């Protein structure tokens, strides 16, 4: 797109169209918004039977190469699944599991790929331990360490916002090793030697944990290829931005539909409230923002991983989706009036989804600062 004389094209295959359709129906059936509060209150991190169905549909191996049991497709197809899940505030480990697999494809050792990619494609749950108490969005600013000891390599430090840690089968942990960022892949037995604590987070559809690494002792073979780690961290960040953008686009579409429905049925002063321009006009602004965000999203889905152009596209997509959802859900609370102030109103679910999405991997202003570095 640097060549301004050529119009950009959004490639969208029949396969993607089919997936989008199936995923939209699946999300509607399995994650009805009406059951969102029951899902939040449930004891278990997730409904294992629904997760098994997602695995059976092949969704967990979409972007895993065929030789490792996946479909050999790309993140472009993953996006078509992530967007409807966001729309229904599904809060599954789908994105984190997909990203973990991406990191292995990018930087896993031959034996890690051979052993773990097929397991992930079959439904093993992946958790990402990349964030730290500093809250820094730069994934390479790390305090957690890996230190050689007599028994192996001892991990130390604290990781925050580790989704689905309690139910995870595999955990990818970033630490400083030999003075540089390193990524270690631990199975349940290995990361189970550390300690996890449930976090109370703003998006209640997420199961988020704080992971204390002290006590985890691993071997050198747990680490991903050292010379690929920087690239893997960058790819993890970009894949996360893309999938968060997808979830937030889905959320923005969902909250606009929810609010429009309310504006079409709720009457005040003898008139449908959607007839008032003070409500109608901001809804149109929200729609315009959603349109731009979805266009950025599906363009980014096609070029993610494609050097600077890919990074520019995913950062734009995340900035646009974050702002679209923030605006749409913020106005949704207001436009529902007194009902909007209650826990029962779905507007808060979407607003929380957006606040979570902005807090993960950089908000819109952060993305724009990175874009300025790339483009100005």
């Amino acid at each position, binding site marked *: 797109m640097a060549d301004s004389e050529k*119009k950009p094209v*959004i490639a969208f295959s029949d396969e993607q169209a089919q997936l989008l359709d199936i995923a939209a129906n699946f999300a509607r059936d399995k994650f009805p918004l009406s059951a969102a509060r029951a899902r939040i209150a449930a004891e278990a991190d997730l409904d294992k039977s629904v997760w098994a169905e997602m695995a059976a549909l092949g969704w967990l191996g979409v972007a895993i190469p065929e030789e490792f049991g996946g479909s050999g497709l790309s993140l472009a197809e993953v996006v078509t699944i992530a967007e409807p899940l966001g729309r229904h505030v599904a809060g599954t480990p789908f994105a984190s599991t997909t990203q973990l697999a991406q990191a292995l494809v990018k930087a896993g050792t031959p034996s890690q790929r051979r052993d773990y990619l097929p397991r992930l494609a079959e439904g093993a749950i992946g958790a990402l331990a990349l964030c730290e108490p500093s809250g820094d969005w730069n994934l390479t600013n790390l305090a957690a360490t890996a230190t050689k000891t007599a028994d192996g390599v001892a991990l130390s430090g604290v990781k925050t916002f580790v989704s689905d840690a309690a139910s995870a089968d595999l955990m990818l942990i970033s630490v400083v090793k030999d003075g540089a960022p390193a990524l270690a892949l631990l199975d349940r037995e290995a990361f189970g030697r550390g300690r996890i604590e449930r976090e109370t987070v703003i998006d209640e559809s997420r199961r988020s944990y704080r992971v204390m690494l002290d006590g985890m002792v691993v071997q050198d073979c747990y680490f991903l290829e050292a010379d690929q780690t920087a690239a893997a961290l960058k790819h993890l960040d970009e894949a996360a931005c893309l999938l968060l953008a997808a979830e937030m686009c889905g959320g923005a579409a969902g909250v606009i539909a929810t609010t429009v429905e309310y504006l079409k049925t709720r009457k005040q002063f003898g008139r449908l409230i959607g007839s008032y321009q003070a409500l*109608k006009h901001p809804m*149109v602004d929200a*729609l315009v923002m959603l349109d*731009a965000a*979805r266009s950025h999203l599906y363009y980014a889905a096609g070029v993610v991983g494609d050097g600077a152009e890919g990074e520019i596209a995913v950062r734009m997509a995340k900035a646009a989706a974050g702002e679209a959802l923030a605006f749409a859900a913020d106005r949704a609370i207001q436009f529902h009036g007194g009902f909007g102030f209650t826990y029962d109103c779905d507007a808060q679910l979407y607003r929380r989804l957006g606040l979570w999405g902005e807090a993960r991997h950089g908000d819109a202003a952060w993305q724009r600062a990175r874009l300025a570095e790339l*483009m100005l």
Partner: protein
Amino acid sequence: MSLSKQELDDFRAGVRAWFEENKPADPGFLLPQSFMEVGTDAQFYFLRDWQRKVYEAGYLGMAWPREYGGGGKPQMLQDIVTREMVRQKVPFMTNTIGLSWAGPLILNMGTEEQKKAYIPGILSAEDIWCQGFSEPDHGSDLGNAQLKAVRDGHEFVLNGSKIWTSLGAYAKYMILLARTNPHANNKYEGLSFYLIPMRIAGIEVRPIRKLTGEYGFNQTFFRDARVPESCLIGGEGNGWQVAMATLMFERGAAGGQAGGHAMMSTEVSEVVALARAAKRGGRPAIEDPLVRDQLVRFIVEERGFALNSARAKVKPLVSEYPLSIPMAGKLAMSEFQRRLNQFALSLQGANAAYYVGDAHAIDRGLWQRAYFNAFSATIGGGTSEIQHNIIGERVLGLAKS
């Protein structure tokens, strides 16, 4: 007809070379940026000659039928030409109303006679067209147009006034919305649509001075002006439907088939260049984090428009609101242009206070004028506020305001 990539590339190279060779030299005065801003004879004749040159080279109306002066070629070729014109920033095609609205309308709904009579002159810019929709008291409420058209035998007698008639002083024809039946069941059913000659007794065009201090718009007065009934298009009483079809061309939902760009819009890259040149506290303005953030916002938004057009072509990705991208284009892009030009002024420091006419004004005062003129698009063709109503009602399905 399908063309190979090689053929398309060769064609594009030929187009590029032609425009590089033939684009007009700087006329020595500030050119308008759209057909709504043509305020002097020098500007008008310069632009008309340019359109004729492009047409005669075969680069305008390429996809329109050959029998009416078009090229009879695939639309794809015209699109390549139009993009190249935008890329090289050559002057716009000044007969915009003819090319983008009257032309497509006549080709869609006109009689064979009308097509033969009007299309060739639209393309060559021999016959300039203007538009008679808005009235002084009914700016955005098009359905309430009151200009009277009273049947008298095989003629209609016109009385009333239209406003914002760009190119009115130069126009040979007007597309006109008039009220034929003041007693119809509702305001829409009483309207009819005409293609009328401008140089007849009873029509007077008076220039309006714009907020920029320049000219370009007119008010057109009708006093017992008589036109033959053959001027009707779409049938008596169907004016509203015809006007709606025309407005879809205007708002970018359809049309533009004649090709050629109609607006010299500001691109973010030009504002980035301005930010590099401008100084803030001794440093280039582009180093200021707030300037950077704002520039990136504009870049993201600008790219969003191009990507919206790309996504609009992918059916499964626009299934929820199929009309939202085409219907919201005018609203989003006109407001974007207004904000972008406003920001460009803020980058100029103290020099933002210069205006067109001062030799020291940056780019001859282009930015000052562009900001003021940006309102023509946020107001014209249905104000942004009316656009919000239309989109809210037709796309989101909200109750009428």
